[in-house]
C-alpha cells in the first residue's frame, strides 16, 4: 500500500516538475532528466532496503544500505540539479545577440 501511495506521489511530483520547468522556461536537457531518474532509482532502492533491513531487525545493516544506495542517489541528484542550474545561469548571463 505504501509503495502504491509513493508511486502516485512520485507521478504527481514528476508531472508537476515538468510543468513547472516549462512554465518557468527552465531548459532541462534529456541527460539531466536521465540523471534525475537514476537518482530516483537509487533513492527508491535505498528506501526499500533501509526499511526492509529494519523489519529484519538488522538496524546496522539498514544504515549501511542507506549509505551504499543513498549516497549515489544524492550524487546523481546534485549533478542533475547542478547541471540545470549552471546551464540556465550561463544562458541568463550570456548577452543576447542582435537584441
Amino acid at each position, binding site marked *: 500500500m505504501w509503495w502504491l501511495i509513493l508511486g502516485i506521489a512520485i507521478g504527481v511530483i514528476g508531472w508537476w516538475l515538468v510543468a513547472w520547468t516549462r512554465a518557468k522556461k527552465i531548459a532541462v536537457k534529456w541527460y539531466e532528466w536521465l540523471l534525475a531518474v537514476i537518482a530516483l532509482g537509487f533513492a527508491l532502492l535505498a528506501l526499500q*532496503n533501509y526499511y*526492509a*533491513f529494519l*523489519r*529484519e*531487525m*538488522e538496524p*546496522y545493516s539498514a544504515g549501511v*544500505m542507506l549509505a*551504499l544506495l543513498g549516497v549515489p542517489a544524492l550524487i546523481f541528484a546534485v549533478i542533475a540539479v547542478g547541471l540545470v542550474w549552471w546551464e540556465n545561469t550561463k544562458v541568463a548571463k550570456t548577452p543576447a545577440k542582435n537584441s
Partner: protein
Amino acid sequence: MATNLTRREFLKDLGLLGAGITLAPAAVSGADIFDWDSQKTPVLNRPSWVNTSAVPTMEIDWDKMERWREWRTTRGSFAEYVGKERDDRLTKLQTENLDRWLKQNKPGYTLKDRALGIATGQGAGAQGFLQPKDVTTPEKLGVSKWTGSPEDAAVMVTAALRHLGAGTIGFVELDPRTTEKLIYAEDPDKKVMKIADVDQPTEDDKTRVIPKKARWVSVWTVPMSQETTKAAPTVLCQLTTGLTYTLNRSIQLRLQYFLAGLGYLGLGEASTNALGISPALGTMAGLGEMSRLNRLITPEWGPITRVFKMITDLPLAPTKPINAGIMQFCKVCKKCADFCPSKALSFDTEPTWQVRGPWNNAGHKAFYEDSTKCRAYWRQVGTNCGLCFTACPFGTKNQAFFHEFRNALVSATPVFDSALKAVDDWLNPGPANPELGNPFKDPEKWWKTTNLPIYGINTSTGVSEI
C-alpha cells in the same frame, strides 16, 4: 563517426546496454536464465533462480561411500576421540560455566533462558522407527489402500507435510548402488539398520529391519527462528534447535499416521538424527546444497533450518538436486570459518575427498570439519553454539531487495561472488565482543520484542494462494 548522439541514438544504445547487462550473467555462466526449469520440483514453489541439476553440486564417489554408523560422529564418540581425561575436564567446565553465567545473569544464559529451554523440550509426540499400533488403516475402514501415480503421491504428501509444519519437501528413491548408502548402517543407539526382503518392518533390542519394498524417502526442512539462532552461542540459540526437534517429533508422528491411513509404511527417526544422513538426503532431494559448513544450505532459509526424513513404500516421484550457486559461493566466502570460535571449519578454497577424522563419512568431496574442535567449544559454552549459522550470508530473512538480487546473481554466475561477500562483510561484520559465550545478537532485545512471527519463522515463504 558521430561524437554527439541524438536522443534516438542514445535511447537505442541505452536499450542495448540494458539488454547486455541483463544477459551478461547468462553468457558468463553458459546458463539460459530465461529457460523456465519445469523439472525444478513438481510439488513446491521454489525461488525462480533455483535451478535443478542431474547431480548435486557436491561430487560423490558412490563406490567409495559406505553406509555410515551414526554413532561414529562426535555425538556418539567424542570421549573416544579426545580421551576420557579431556572429556571429563570439559564436562566440569561446562557445568561451571553454565552455573556461573546463570548466577551472573549473563544475557542468553539467564534463568528465563534456561526455563524456556526446558519448556521447549516438552509436549513432543512419541518418536519411533515403527508406526504406532493404533493407526487407522484403510483395511480397518473396509476400503482399499490409496492408489495413484508417484507424481500424484508426491503432491499429496507435500500438501500434507506443509500442513503439518514442514518448510520445503523433496523425495529420494533408494538405489542400493547409490542413495541407499545414505541410510545408516547403525543408528545412534548402535542398533543395526538392516534392509531385508521382508514384508513388514521390525525392531528388537539389536536391529531395525527396513523392508526392501520401502524404497522412497520423504525429506523435509523445518525452519528455525533466525532471530534466536542469531543469539548464538547461548541457551536462547540452543533452545531454537530444541524447539525445532520438538516440533518435528509431532510432524513425524502425524506423517506416520497419515501414511498408515493411506495404507503404507512410514518408518521414522527412532531418535534425533537417526535413520539416515539428513544433509545428504536433503541434497539429493534438492532441498539445498552442501556447503563449507559441511551442512545443508537452503535457498529459502540458508542454513537456519533442520532436515528430517521418513522411509515409505508409497511410490513418490523423486525431486532433483539443485544448483543455486551456493556451493560455488562457499568456495569464495569462508565467513563461517572466520566466525567459528574453535576454527573447526575448513579454510580450503576447494572441497576435498580427504576426511579430517574418523567422525567424517568419506565418499564425497566436501569441506570436512574438525568435529572435535566444534564439540569441545559446545562443551565450554554449555550449548550447541551456532555461530557459523549466524555468519552465513544466506541466513537472512530475505525481505530486502538486496537479498533477492544477491541470490539471483549468485545463482547466475560466480563472477560477482567476491564482491557480494565484501558487501556482506559491511552488512554483517561479526560479533562485537567475541569473548567465550558472548552472544552474536543481544538476547535481551529479543526478550523485549513481542511481535515476531509465530515460532519466529516466516511461514509465507514459498506460499502461493493464487
